[in-house]
């Protein structure tokens, strides 16, 4: 596994990473942190880290960033399950989006997934009976300053979203993307 033993770092900062031992290591560090490396790769990486101060330092930096990993709200799973009905025929939606505040409010107490759908539906009926009507989905909107090219509306995929693996839209060629990125830098 000794690849030349160049223990001096080429810059850690170098983005292009193909081929060189440090490049490979820097590519793989996130997977090491996520515990997703195969045993053989992991061994090679540990070996490199034991010899390369630059990459070893990078581990510390990446771990510090990973500590800032955002997590979904605590009750997230319960909220989702609270909107579903699960039975032998599969999974169906028991509480539509405009009623989800109900499911969200109500979740927590009940633990049995099988019971959720029905009870949430019962609550829905109750609320309907009371005659509360919501014309609109109370969406929590984000701040406007956040713009996203990935969310540009021109290529809607109204139907495509249900297709496995879709949509792999053919993007620009690598060179174009790379030159764009260089411009951004």
């Amino acid at each position: 596994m000794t690849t030349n033993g160049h223990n001096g770092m080429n810059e850690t900062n170098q983005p292009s990473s193909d081929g060189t031992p440090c490049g490979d290591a820097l590519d793989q560090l996130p997977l090491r942190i996520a515990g997703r490396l195969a045993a053989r790769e992991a061994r090679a990486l540990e070996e490199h880290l034991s010899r390369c101060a630059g990459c070893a330092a990078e581990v510390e930096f990446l771990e510090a960033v990973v500590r800032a990993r955002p997590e979904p709200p605590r009750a997230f799973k319960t909220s989702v399950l609270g909107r579903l009905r699960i039975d032998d025929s599969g999974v169906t939606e028991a509480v539509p989006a405009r009623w989800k505040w109900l499911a969200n409010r109500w979740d927590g107490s009940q633990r049995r997934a099988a019971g959720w759908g029905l009870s949430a539906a019962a609550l829905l009926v109750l609320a309907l009976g009371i005659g509360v009507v919501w014309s609109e989905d109370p969406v929590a909107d984000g701040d406007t300053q956040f713009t996203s090219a990935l969310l540009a509306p021109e290529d809607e995929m109204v139907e495509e979203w249900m297709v496995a693996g879709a949509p792999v839209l053919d993007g620009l060629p690598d060179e174009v993307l790379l030159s764009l990125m260089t411009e951004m830098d």
Partner: protein
Amino acid sequence: MKGKSREATDPAPDDGELVQRAKGGDAAALDLLLDRHQGVVYRFLLGLLGDEDAAADAAQETFVRALTNLNGFRGDAAFRTWILAIARNEARGMARRKSRRRESALDDLPPPVAGGPSPETRALRNVEVQRVRDTLARLPEKQRMSVSLRLFDGLSFREIAEATDSTEGSARVNYHHGIRRLREWLHDDQRT
């Protein structure tokens, strides 16, 4: 809901198997799918929308759509790839709807960090955590997405490319550029 949902034989069923079970009404399988993918879906949406509430909202919608349309998952791509495509569509719809605005709440508290350090340590750490998150949020979109998907969720560059309309090569470059810039910015901030 007992049945075959908890076979002792395989400790970690793959997503395809979980989907099959969920289609048959296996609540435990559904639970596992959620456990496995809620993080990446939420973070993906946070990267796209830049707002914690909006991301949680869109993530909930994403899962409801996906889990009630499991027949649309044909299994020739990874479940994660499939649900990220749904998430992106959800985010797109949300971005389209947001015409009327409320003021942004940039100072929302970060969710609590896991673990049990002392309150002082935690307070210090939260400052650091927020600083990293804010800095990450300033990265150009594709760099931000690549860093998040790679570093927080361990996706391959190919998966990142699929989720972000990119190529494997640019996903890699975006990741490394993003990390480099993140390091520089965090370092610069510290000095001022």
